């Protein structure tokens, strides 16, 4: 095959050379990748396993995903657009992140694919060094972009999931319990920072509305100390609950916290407090008109 030498500027590393030449070369590359789809995918899957990546997945699963990635890869090379690849990357990430797949594995397999494809190009064009160079010039920037798209897509998805999980944990760790009809209990445990305090209040107010609660028992037995900011916040929570028509009973108030409240100007005689949670619940039930009867009273008299 005769080679024609053309006058063209030597491209700087990594920059795409926008010529008709490039488009034609990419088309040739894509054709090659499609023709050798089977061997290349298998080669790739083999190398993934050898590199001990994606250990969380079975071989069959790896091959299935490898196929999807491969096809999307080739498609991106062919169309030059990356939206579909981006969407796929995010979709893939959504699936594999819960399986415990990590970032370095995803980056690793994409680089392996690049290597597998590059080697197959060497094998095909090793007799035509100039052609090989030109094909690699066309391939290189696209391949970089693809690797980037997949890796970034994965990382973004991971971050999104982490944020979601953190939110869920925060919600779980501040449960608002519905114990009886119209009665909510909010046991608070541990250290409360301003952000958590705020979240507690928002959750409680939403719960009051959803459950149509008339009485709320906030138990702070498990809270060691409270600074004046958080104490203020507690008072605000009580006031806001009242605006929603609910009465708040605070239980488990330690002498230290009582002191803090007094220091910030809270009139404790205005706030309904009861010593312990049990007492608080009884008071709440009384307010709601419940009366707890001992079993003997319910049994029919003979």
């Amino acid at each position, binding site marked *: 095959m005769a080679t024609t030498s053309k006058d063209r500027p030597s491209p700087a590393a990594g920059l795409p050379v926008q010529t008709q030449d490039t488009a034609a070369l990419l088309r040739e590359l894509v054709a090659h990748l499609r023709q050798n789809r089977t061997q290349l995918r298998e080669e790739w899957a083999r190398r993934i396993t050898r590199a001990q990546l994606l250990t969380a997945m079975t071989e069959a699963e790896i091959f299935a995903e490898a196929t999807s990635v491969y096809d999307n890869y080739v498609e991106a090379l062919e169309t030059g657009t990356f939206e579909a690849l981006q969407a796929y990357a995010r979709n893939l990430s959504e699936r594999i992140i819960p399986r415990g797949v990590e970032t370095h594995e995803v980056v690793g397999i994409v680089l392996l694919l690049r290597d597998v494809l590059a080697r197959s190009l060497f094998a095909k064009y090793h007799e035509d060094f100039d052609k090989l160079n030109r094909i690699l010039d066309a391939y290189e920037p696209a391949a970089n972009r693809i690797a980037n798209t997949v890796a970034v897509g994965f990382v973004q998805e991971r971050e999104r999931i982490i944020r979601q999980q953190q939110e869920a944990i925060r919600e779980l760790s501040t449960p608002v319990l519905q114990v009886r009809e119209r009665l909510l209990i909010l046991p608070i445990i541990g250290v409360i920072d301003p952000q958590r305090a705020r979240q507690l*209040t*928002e959750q409680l*107010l*939403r719960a*009051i*509305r959803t459950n*149509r609660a*008339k009485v709320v028992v906030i138990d702070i037995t498990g809270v060691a100390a409270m600074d004046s900011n958080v104490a203020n916040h507690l008072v*605000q929570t009580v*006031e*806001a*609950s*009242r*605006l*929603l*028509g*609910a009465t708040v009973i605070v239980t488990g108030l330690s002498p230290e916290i009582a002191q803090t409240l007094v220091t910030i100007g809270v009139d404790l005689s205005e706030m309904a407090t009861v010593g312990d949670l049990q007492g608080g619940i009884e008071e709440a039930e009384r307010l709601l008109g419940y009366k707890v009867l001992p079993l003997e009273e319910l049994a029919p008299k003979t």
Partner: protein
Amino acid sequence: MEVPILTQGQYLIASIQSALTDADLSQLREALIERVGRFRARGVIVDVTALDVMDSFAVRTLRDIAHMARLRGAETVIVGIQPEVAFAMVQLGLTLKGVATALDLEEGLTFLDGVARERVERGQGPFDRGPGHRDRA
């Protein structure tokens, strides 16, 4: 924008439908006070479910309504304050102290019925305007 005011038995129910200007709020106050007198209402419910912001003027107006209604023998309940609005109010230091509040219309009616019942129990007829009005702090 005029707020529709309905009568239900001895009660007046004002249901706010959308954002109100200061003038609208003042107009509502006048309309309610006038009607309390005209119909000899025993209770007033103001439903603020549709309000996504309550600032100092709105709070002041609601307090005025409650105060004036009480002078004419009617108890007022504010219902439907949204959770976020309630939170914003307390953070801004706006209180409805001295004014009864309830979750929604149903709770508001239950509350007013309770007040009426208590009046009967205390020996005050439902139409009495004697001393001893309940001040809900």
